[in-house]
């Protein structure tokens, strides 16, 4: 990853955190808040290298944990697992496709929710969270897919792929 790509990534991450924590909650109710950090992670999984991407995916998850819930390490673990799985198949598919990007974000959202749910049920005392998570499953998945489709429409998307 070159300097410019690293700066772009850092900017995107900071912007995503600020948007997700301070801006989007004002305009969207909880299930319709897009998970921008997950979208960045999926992008890294499809276009980045394993050496750079894996620790970055873990860090992105960690950053998400810092700004959500009580359990530090929950999303970092989930992000890392999803990154590894996507990376495993990314070399066999046409990773440059925008459709594939949107589809992968949707699948990654479903996987992240499922993984989080399993971890929470196994390791925490919050049985009631099942209903909260499952009730917001479909809206959250669709919101993320929609946000990913908007990201894919960005003018610099294909150029950024080359940079990454």
């Amino acid at each position, binding site marked *: 990853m070159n300097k410019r790509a690293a700066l772009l990534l850092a900017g995107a991450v900071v912007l995503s955190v600020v948007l997700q924590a301070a801006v989007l909650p004002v305009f969207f109710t909880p299930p319709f808040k897009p998970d921008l950090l997950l979208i960045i992670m999926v992008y890294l999984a499809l276009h980045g290298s394993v050496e750079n991407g894996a620790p970055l995916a873990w860090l992105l998850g960690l950053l998400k944990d810092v700004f959500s819930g009580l359990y530090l390490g929950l999303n970092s673990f989930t992000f890392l697992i999803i990154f590894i799985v996507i990376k495993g198949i990314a070399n066999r598919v046409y990773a440059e496709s925008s459709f594939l990007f949107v589809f992968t974000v949707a699948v990654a959202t479903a996987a992240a929710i499922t993984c989080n749910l399993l971890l929470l049920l196994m390791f925490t005392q919050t049985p009631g*969270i099942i209903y909260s998570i499952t009730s917001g499953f479909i809206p959250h998945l669709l919101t993320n897919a929609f946000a990913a489709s908007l990201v894919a429409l960005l003018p610099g998307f294909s150029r950024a792929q080359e940079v990454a």
Partner: protein
Amino acid sequence: MELLKKYGFFLLAGGVAFVALLFFTLNIPNNREANFIERGALMVFAPVMKPVARTSGFFEDVWDGYISLVNVRQENVKLRDEIKSLNARVVTGNEFQQANQRLTRLLDMKNAIEPPTLAASVVGEDVTSWFRTMIIDRGSASGIREGMAVVAADGVVGQIVKVAPSTARVLLLTDHASGIAATIERSRARGVVKGKDAGLCSMEFTTREEDVKVGDMLVTSGIGGVFIKGLPIGEVTMVKRGEYGIFQTITIRPSVNLDHLEEVLVVLRGGYE
């Protein structure tokens, strides 16, 4: 004849002038009445005067309008700016008024709480959809510690969970991991208020025999030492007693509107060391 030829013009001019003078002097006594010449002229011109006057009026309006339009754009821009400025002042005024009302109520709450409190602003919310936390703009540098209670003008908000030097995270009472010892204000029935989905809470561990009705107000019981006794938590919106089981199912709507919270008070007491 020679004389007439020589002075004819002067004689004619003098005659005409004399006739004109005579005409003038003869009309002086009747200067308030129209004579046949006046009447005739007015009659002839009347049908023409009206449309011409209208047309010229139209052109006058157009001209005046055009002349006026020369500066209209600048004036328009200036007025628009003034409107913007005035609107901004109105909005700012309304904001100040609302902030004043909120802060006045918060101050009332502050005065009602015995231990020292610290006012903080909400600067962020949880980035996920299923956890319920928020970020405030005060941290350990202001004396905040994990475990301290957070309240708003209408009642309990939650508890401080993670503290950084300049910010802290508040676990809201609607989060599934939250638990607050509570009492029904009317019957003194006890239980633990836990977070539920859709911004609601549930009161758990309240036995079937306890007297709980829809509309009852819930306050903190003070047990556990995090929250001082008597802070409003919410209102009972549903009570369900099944045929079996030891406890009843009670749903609570929090007193505080957590979706639109802007300022909170951190009670500077207790907390984890």
